[in-house]
């Protein structure tokens, strides 16, 4: 994690740069600092010491201690004395602001403490993010090849930073490949691209990467992070959400098809109501089903329902709107103009939703249902038949086992539980293990005839399940009907303390509005349909901005708004507001094509810059807010595994289907709920084990240990940006896990020279120095390990652990 105020430092550099005088940013920065650091206690509502830091007038008026600022004179301003610890009052309590922040406030007061016109306080509902973006003019910048570059160069020049040069071609193809596919390029792809000197080589590379199905697997994974996807529901039983993977496959396919983003969003919010005859669209409503739920916890159904609705509001508002509406569950939002009432108006939209099964193909699904009923019925019959045959044997064996125990235990066990004293009960419970009759015990003494009868039942049983296929259904939701349960504001978030009844409606900060009642003979309330239309509209100021910011973030490492699921006041201003709005306008104009946005971004000079920051950029803009260079990034958890499999040549590119359970060592399964062999039933077909990570099972109570170490999300809350930590357990996993050793050995089987190993793992030839070192290493390890192939496996294990392999420049 980088220091959060690097961004501010960079903006300060812009604000204070002497040459060509840019717009004075200091008011916007100052307000951002006040909001972030002081707003919690000195907001409109909180007003500690009667001080409200919400506008120029309130500051001039001040609080109990008198005026907070004297414009033009920081030293005489109580606010500045307090934050710089130069007076009697020191603020904020328990710490001091970052020096950069103090400097921002000093400059701002010195310049007259103007309250920014563009960045009015959020309480006025005039926050930039709540106003519809307009297409801003593209600045005329010499040397800018694309509008994106023009916006970026404008600020870089103002800050006096020269952007980094273009990266070399190897870095470029690796970057593009990891960004779009989550995989390294193959040695063949690298060779082709390096030898292609035509002017449009880069463009054709992007086109071909976007056309590959690997693209949906990578970008679908980003989306699954956002919608807190998992294959199981969580808690003690952690049951499977049956066919949750249909939604996962739907997401991957939607990205591969370049489904327009507005359509993609609408299908997920209300596919059942908008396209009731289209199973693919309705599968989108799996969005509601793939999160954590506690449906299996009984006697708390009312609470389970409350939590489910809260999850819907929380996830929907943060994913599609970039707003933390859930903060208004118990009280009005502390920082954004979202009253508690709005939370419950939004909740009312989801109140009529109930779980549903989407029949992917109607007749097939109907037949499947009938067959499943029949199978269930037959199963019970057979179960009864089996116990009938086994019973006499079981009783006999149990009596024999009891007879071997001490007399008092025998007495206790022979009594019915209700006849036993509590001591006898204790004895009986403790001895239960000793008199248990296993299936094997019974099998050993079966008569020939009974053994044959059982065998024939077992054969019938197995044949019933032979070729057992996944039901042609997907989890989804549907409205319970035209009438919805009533929704009340829960006072302080307590559902047992209902306040006013509210109807379904939209966020007041974004214009508000009620959802009308649906027509008399409608099958649904139409609430989610109305929400979908309202959300996924060019008139919604957040819908396009939030998504283009996400796309930007996944390409550049951080967004123009640094908090991708929070565009509220705590987010501050974007680093490049005009660029953000221009991208949003383009996204709408390009009919919500995500692929076209990739291309737009990747064709810019900015995307192709070297990952090496110049010393000047490091000094002036350490957080790289101004995008003077590319942010080097560590591979994500799935990318580590997939890249290793690709290097070793064992990656399977099979797509879709039920989640794969890969083999794990007992020590890796340590801590899983239940007995490992029952809780982790490995997919029998070994060819499945090397499929891409997006297809591996996502248990909510148990993460693949390598993924957990590399910051993969746990699928409980929406994850809009992964951590990128560096830890010793990561190194241990990459050095010592059986998976890595096996892959290194597989790789070594295919490799005969050092150069070959380098090409397969690092996509390039070794330098003479590296080649020499590697040959020495091979020689030494051959002597030590007894074979050249073992030495090459060691070399491979080493290369798979290098920073060059683990980072994308």
């Amino acid at each position, binding site marked *: 994690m980088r220091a959060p105020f690097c961004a501010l430092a960079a903006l300060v550099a812009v604000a204070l740069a002497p040459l060509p005088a840019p717009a004075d940013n200091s008011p916007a920065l100052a307000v951002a600092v006040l909001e972030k650091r002081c707003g919690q206690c000195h907001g409109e509502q909180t007003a500690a010491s009667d001080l409200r830091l919400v506008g120029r007038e309130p500051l001039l008026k001040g609080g109990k201690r008198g005026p907070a600022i004297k414009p033009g004179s920081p030293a005489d301003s109580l606010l500045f004395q307090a934050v710089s610890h130069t007076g009697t009052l020191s603020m904020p309590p328990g710490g001091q602001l970052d020096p950069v922040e103090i400097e921002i406030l000093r400059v701002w007061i010195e310049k007259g403490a103007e309250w920014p016109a563009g960045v009015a306080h959020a309480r006025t509902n005039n926050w930039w993010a709540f106003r519809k973006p307009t297409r801003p003019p593209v600045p005329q910048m010499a040397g800018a090849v694309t509008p994106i570059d023009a916006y970026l160069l404008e600020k870089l020049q103002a800050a006096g930073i020269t952007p980094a040069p273009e990266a070399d071609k190897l870095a470029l193809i690796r970057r593009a490949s990891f960004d779009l596919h989550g995989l390294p390029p193959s040695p063949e792809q690298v060779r082709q691209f390096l030898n292609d000197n035509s002017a449009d080589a880069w463009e054709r590379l992007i086109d071909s990467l976007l056309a590959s199905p690997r693209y949906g697997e990578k970008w679908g994974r980003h989306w699954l992070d956002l919608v807190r996807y998992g294959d199981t529901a969580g808690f003690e039983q952690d049951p499977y959400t049956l066919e949750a993977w249909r939604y996962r496959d739907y997401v991957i396919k939607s990205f591969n098809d370049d489904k327009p983003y507005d359509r993609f969003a609408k299908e997920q919010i209300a596919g059942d109501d908008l396209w009731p005859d289209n199973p693919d669209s309705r599968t989108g409503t799996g969005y509601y089903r793939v999160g954590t739920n506690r449906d299996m916890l009984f006697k708390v159904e009312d609470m389970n329902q409350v939590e489910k609705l809260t999850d819907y509001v929380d996830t929907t508002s943060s994913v599609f709107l970039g707003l933390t509406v859930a903060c208004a569950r118990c009280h009005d939002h502390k920082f954004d103009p979202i009253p508690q009432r709005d939370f419950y108006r939004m909740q009312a939209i989801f109140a009529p939703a109930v779980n549903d099964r989407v029949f992917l193909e109607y007749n097939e699904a109907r037949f499947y249902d009938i067959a499943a009923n029949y199978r269930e019925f037959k199963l019970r019959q057979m179960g009864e038949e089996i116990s009938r045959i086994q019973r006499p044997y079981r009783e006999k064996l149990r009596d024999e086992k009891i007879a071997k125990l001490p007399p008092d235990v025998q007495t206790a066990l022979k009594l019915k539980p209700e006849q036993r004293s509590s001591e006898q009960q204790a004895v009986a419970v403790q001895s239960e293990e000793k008199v248990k009759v296993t299936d094997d015990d019974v099998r050993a003494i079966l008569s020939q005839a009974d053994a044959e009868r059982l065998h024939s039942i077992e054969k019938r049983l197995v044949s019933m399940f032979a070729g057992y296929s996944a039901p042609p259904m997907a989890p989804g939701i549907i409205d319970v009907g035209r009438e919805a349960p009533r929704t009340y504001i829960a006072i302080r978030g307590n559902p047992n303390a209902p306040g006013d009844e509210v109807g379904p409606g939209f966020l007041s900060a974004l214009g508000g509005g009620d959802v009308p009642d649906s027509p008399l003979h409608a099958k649904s309330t139409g609430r989610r349909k109305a929400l979908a239309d309202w959300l996924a509209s060019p008139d919604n100021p957040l819908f396009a901005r939030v998504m283009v910011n996400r796309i930007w973030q996944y390409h550049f490492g951080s967004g123009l708004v640094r908090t991708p699921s929070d565009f509220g006041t705590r987010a501050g201003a974007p680093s490049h507001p005009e660029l953000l709005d221009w991208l949003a306008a383009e996204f709408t104009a390009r009919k919500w094509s995500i692929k076209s946005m990739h291309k737009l971004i990747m064709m810019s000079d900015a995307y192709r810059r070297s990952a090496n920051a110049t010393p000047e950029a490091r000094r002036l803009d350490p957080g790289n807010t101004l995008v003077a260079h590319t942010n080097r990034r560590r591979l994500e958890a799935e990318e580590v595994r997939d890249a290793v499999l690709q290097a070793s040549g064992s990656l399977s590119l099979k797509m879709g289907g039920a989640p794969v359970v890969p083999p794990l060592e007992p020590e890796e399964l340590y801590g899983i709920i239940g007995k490992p062999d029952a809780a982790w039933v490995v997919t029998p077909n070994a060819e499945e084990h090397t499929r891409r990570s997006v297809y591996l099972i996502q248990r909510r109570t148990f993460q693949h240990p390598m993924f957990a170490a590399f910051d993969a999300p746990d699928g409980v809350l929406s994850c809009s940006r992964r951590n990128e930590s560096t830890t010793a357990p990561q190194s241990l996993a990459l050095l010592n896990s059986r998976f890595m050793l096996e892959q290194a050995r597989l790789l070594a089987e295919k490799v005969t020279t050092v150069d070959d190993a380098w090409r397969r793992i690092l996509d390039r030839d070794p330098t003479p120095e590296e080649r020499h070192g590697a040959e020495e290493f091979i020689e030494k390890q051959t002597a030590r*390990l007894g074979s050249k192939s073992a030495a090459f496996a060691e070399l491979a294990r*080493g290369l798979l652990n290098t920073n060059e392999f683990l980072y994308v420049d």
Partner: protein
Amino acid sequence: MTRREMLLKAGQGFGAVVLASLLEAAESNPLAPKPPQVPAKAKSVIYLFMHGGVSHVDTFDPKPELARHNGQPLSVELAKTIKTSFIHDPTKAILRGSPWTFRPGGKCGTPVSDLFPRVRERMDDIAVIRSCFGDVFDHAPAIYLRNSGSQFPGRPCLGSWVVYGLGTENQNLPSFVVMSDGSTKSGPPAYSAGFLPAVYQGTVFRGGDDPILYLRNPEGISGETQRDTLNFIGKLDRMHDAARPGDSTLEARIASYELAFRMQSAAPEAVDFAKETPATRKLYGLDENRTADFGRKCLLARRLVERGVRFVQIYSGTNVGDDWDAAHEDLVGSHEKMAGKIDQPIAALLEDLKARGLLDSTLVVWSGEFGRTPLSQGKNGRDHHPYGFTMWMAGAGIKGGQALGSTDEFGVQAVDMRVDAHDVNATLLRLVGLDHEKLTYFYQGRDQRLTDVHGQNEFTRKLLA
């Protein structure tokens, strides 16, 4: 050892040239020790988690009235205040007195039942809190709630918050260690870092000589080969790094490999009891089958705390073997068995920490996710009961020999000094020098806290008084 010294030591695997950049990388080490936010009473925590639910009225909360009303129902009014998993109608169930005798312990005389005769001898060091309560009666959500302040998984647990706030003293061992019998009813989310970076995750110590996952060199790879390979990686990384100046992340990863290598020797050393005296082994009950496993965990906890590990959590009970939760059907059998495994080791831990002068700087916590019903479940059991139950604490300058809070005469509802999971967690944080209102992490639009907006009934002062 200071951070700089630590790094100087860690840097011995390298040339002096890279040392400067290593030091720079260490500045961003998220586990570097940090000063406490408020005066700290303890440096480390050993949290003994009683998985499955221990009956409070049979251990630390004596209820003579319960025995007196044995076989009678609760008043309808009181019975209606509780909801449990298996007793479908509490108004129709009957009260059951404790089958165990309570006797005064230590000089203070705090009563403890015969389930914990050895812990009873240590009561002068222990403050019992008899007024814990919660509203969740299922295991997994209740375990999450006690550990992370939320019934839902996905939030950072106490141990993660503590190492996030304080860092750790020994970089060669994990900062936050968890020991269990393998499987729990909550799974790993109970010791997860939630939305905090993975570096604050609890590290599970298993049995055996290589307690940490992936600690052992791969099969067939000797120590020499491992060292050669590490040197080889280091050499390539330094060339790579030289072409990419000023990137502290790359340098941090180079350091993480050295750290991993050091952990490979530090962790086995920590779990090697060869240097412990026979008397110590005996004290912890390592010589007896019944106590050997939990005794090993307690002794290991002491050794980890000695080595600067910040937070150790030990689970008693598992959902695939012996568990406190077997009390559903067999109160006597389950509790005799479970208490028998842990009584001596826990008493030994307290005694040993005290003898070594570590008890003052170590906070020892004993708690489960809930208690058990004073009502009988079936003929021989007790059901889950979160409405009033007991935990205890020792060390950290806590005044021992006291019992805080109370439940009603039957042990149904917490009455005096009612404290929920947040109040307890706020208190535990304060004792290690963290203010639960200031220990925050910005996530999803707000400054998240372990105690969310709760924790107002923090009771640190009463403990220390």
